[in-house]
């Protein structure tokens, strides 16, 4: 009889460990506000690092919520609340709008003029296009120049080989990632691997493992391998500005640790947190930084990466169709 009692007790204990589903807020303005606030409170990765008092923000914005506000007004208010995070990776998406924080580059000099790089001095009219790579020989054929406007367009090894073969007589290479606001981290890794002689730990990444602001996994090494077939070990200069963001930030972080590579221009825009998504009861999507990324010294790269040589676009150079930052890079390639 005792044996049966014990079994019964065990079964009751197993079923008593009930799995309580999290509460889904109602689809009201207040419910959607509560839901959005909680998603950021439990999943956003930089609340502590940026010293943001998210509880105060809750109090301040809760007072502004009314059920009378229409979807546009409520959306704008939630967008303003999210902008308190000062993060270009944080957006709210609805059927009618997308909230965004752009001060990571609008508050700084552009240091990029698309007309300049397409002038005869640089890309000109007859530049080559291999998927996402636009390239041309500049400085009387002495330097190879690649403009990479996005890590979303994609390229493959054959594209890289073609461009590097085209530059085989050049002394060095300029990779311009100004105004490249990111894309796929895989492309960043693929391209940087061509400039490494051997695999190297170029950074670290963590992810949230709990709802607390400091509940992170242990740091995982992010390695940049040496490409099996493509090795370019001449001088390389990477050009950056404040719009070099997200996957481009990752690219610059990796490239800074490659041999024979210098970064020239402005500090990158940052975006060091890998973003994930969630949803509100009304179906709006929220994107937020979830996994913080670090450089090889375990320094956060959320606020951007400093160049090795700081240079800015001079207005009098622009008047003469000269890109000051490209010219600086040319002088650094000997």
């Amino acid at each position: 009889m005792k044996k049966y009692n014990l079994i019964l007790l065990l079964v009751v204990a197993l079923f008593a460990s009930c799995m309580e589903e999290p509460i889904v807020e109602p689809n009201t303005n207040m419910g959607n506000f509560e839901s959005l606030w909680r998603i950021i409170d439990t999943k956003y990765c930089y609340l502590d690092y940026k010293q943001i008092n998210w509880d105060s923000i809750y109090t301040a914005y809760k007072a502004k919520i009314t059920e009378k506000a229409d979807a546009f007004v409520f959306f704008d208010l939630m967008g303003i609340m999210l902008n308190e995070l000062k993060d270009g990776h944080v957006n709210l998406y609805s059927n009618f709008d997308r909230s965004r924080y752009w001060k990571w580059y609008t508050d700084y000099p552009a240091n990029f003029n698309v007309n300049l790089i397409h002038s005869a001095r640089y890309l000109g009219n007859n530049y080559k296009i291999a998927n996402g790579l636009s390239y041309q020989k500049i400085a009387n054929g002495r330097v190879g120049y690649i403009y990479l406007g996005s890590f979303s367009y994609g390229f493959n090894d054959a594209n890289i080989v073609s461009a590097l073969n085209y530059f085989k007589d050049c002394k060095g290479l300029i990779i311009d990632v100004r105004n490249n606001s990111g894309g796929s981290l895989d492309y960043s890794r693929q391209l940087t691997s061509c400039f490494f002689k051997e695999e190297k730990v170029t950074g670290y990444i963590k992810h949230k493992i709990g709802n607390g602001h400091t509940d992170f996994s242990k740091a995982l090494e992010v390695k940049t391998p040496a490409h099996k077939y493509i090795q370019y070990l001449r001088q390389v200069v990477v050009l950056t500005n404040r719009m070099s963001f997200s996957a481009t930030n990752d690219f610059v972080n990796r490239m800074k640790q490659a041999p024979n590579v210098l970064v020239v221009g402005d500090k990158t825009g940052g975006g060091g947190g890998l973003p994930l998504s969630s949803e509100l009861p009304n179906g709006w999507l929220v994107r937020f930084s979830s996994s913080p990324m670090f450089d090889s010294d375990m320094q956060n790269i959320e606020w951007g990466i400093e160049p090795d040589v700081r240079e800015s676009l001079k207005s009098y150079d622009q008047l003469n169709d000269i890109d000051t930052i490209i010219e600086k890079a040319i002088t650094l390639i000997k």
Partner: protein
Amino acid sequence: MKKCLIYILSMLSCFATAQTTNEQKYLLTSASNTLGYSVTDFIDPYLSPLTYSGSGIGYNFQSQRFLSIENTRISKFQKLSLLAGKAYNPPHTASMSYFGVNYGWGMRCHLQPINRFRVQLGGLWDLDFMFKYLARNVNNPVNVDLGTNLNVSGSATYDISLFRKNMKLKLDVKSPVLGCMFVPYSGASYYEMFGLGNLDNILHFSSLHNKRGVDANLMLEIQLRSTVWRVGLGYESMKWEANDLIFKRNNLSLKIASVFDFATFAGHKKRAPSNFISPNE
């Protein structure tokens, strides 16, 4: 003459009995192909905190046979189920496509406690896979339910006669008891797990404390001319938890199945009898 006739008849009767006794027995495999239309609810907090609801179609193949001619108390069976469909969040602003496969292998003991009522009890090992794709998500557009379970499995069949037809009412149930499942942290992207190799804490032991559910089918089997059909309802309710995430899958389906028996012959040992004609001769 009369004596002679009796002798011949008795000899014939003996011969007929001998023929019956020496007749070769064959194990039949009972199989069914099932098609179903299902409505499904998902909660997958890795993809969204909202409940996604939708519909899809399913296919199931099941076969069962006794272990041997001598042992007709224990049977082995296997199941293969496929499910695919599309589900929407409550405000219909996003859709999730899903595709699932479940393969199971088990054994059951056959009992007949009362006339016209048969029970099968046993265990089933299964491998469960469900791929869910929420296209608009960034860096977490996909999640996979992957798990393997030891289930208790059983069925109850009751023979009924309705409208001068012999029918069978069959209830088939399975429920997971022990197993192992893949559940990532909500903050870990697939890029980090499979691109960078951070596989910490993604595999979890499962038992009744963190995975509970039932998969049941209530079917009515009807013989129509030279075919056997089953129609009925399927219901699956599964709930599991790991890494502070609670997942749910509810599925209600309308099913129709065709049932058939077959025997297999292959190789030297299981050669087909000479009165069987094969195109492979």
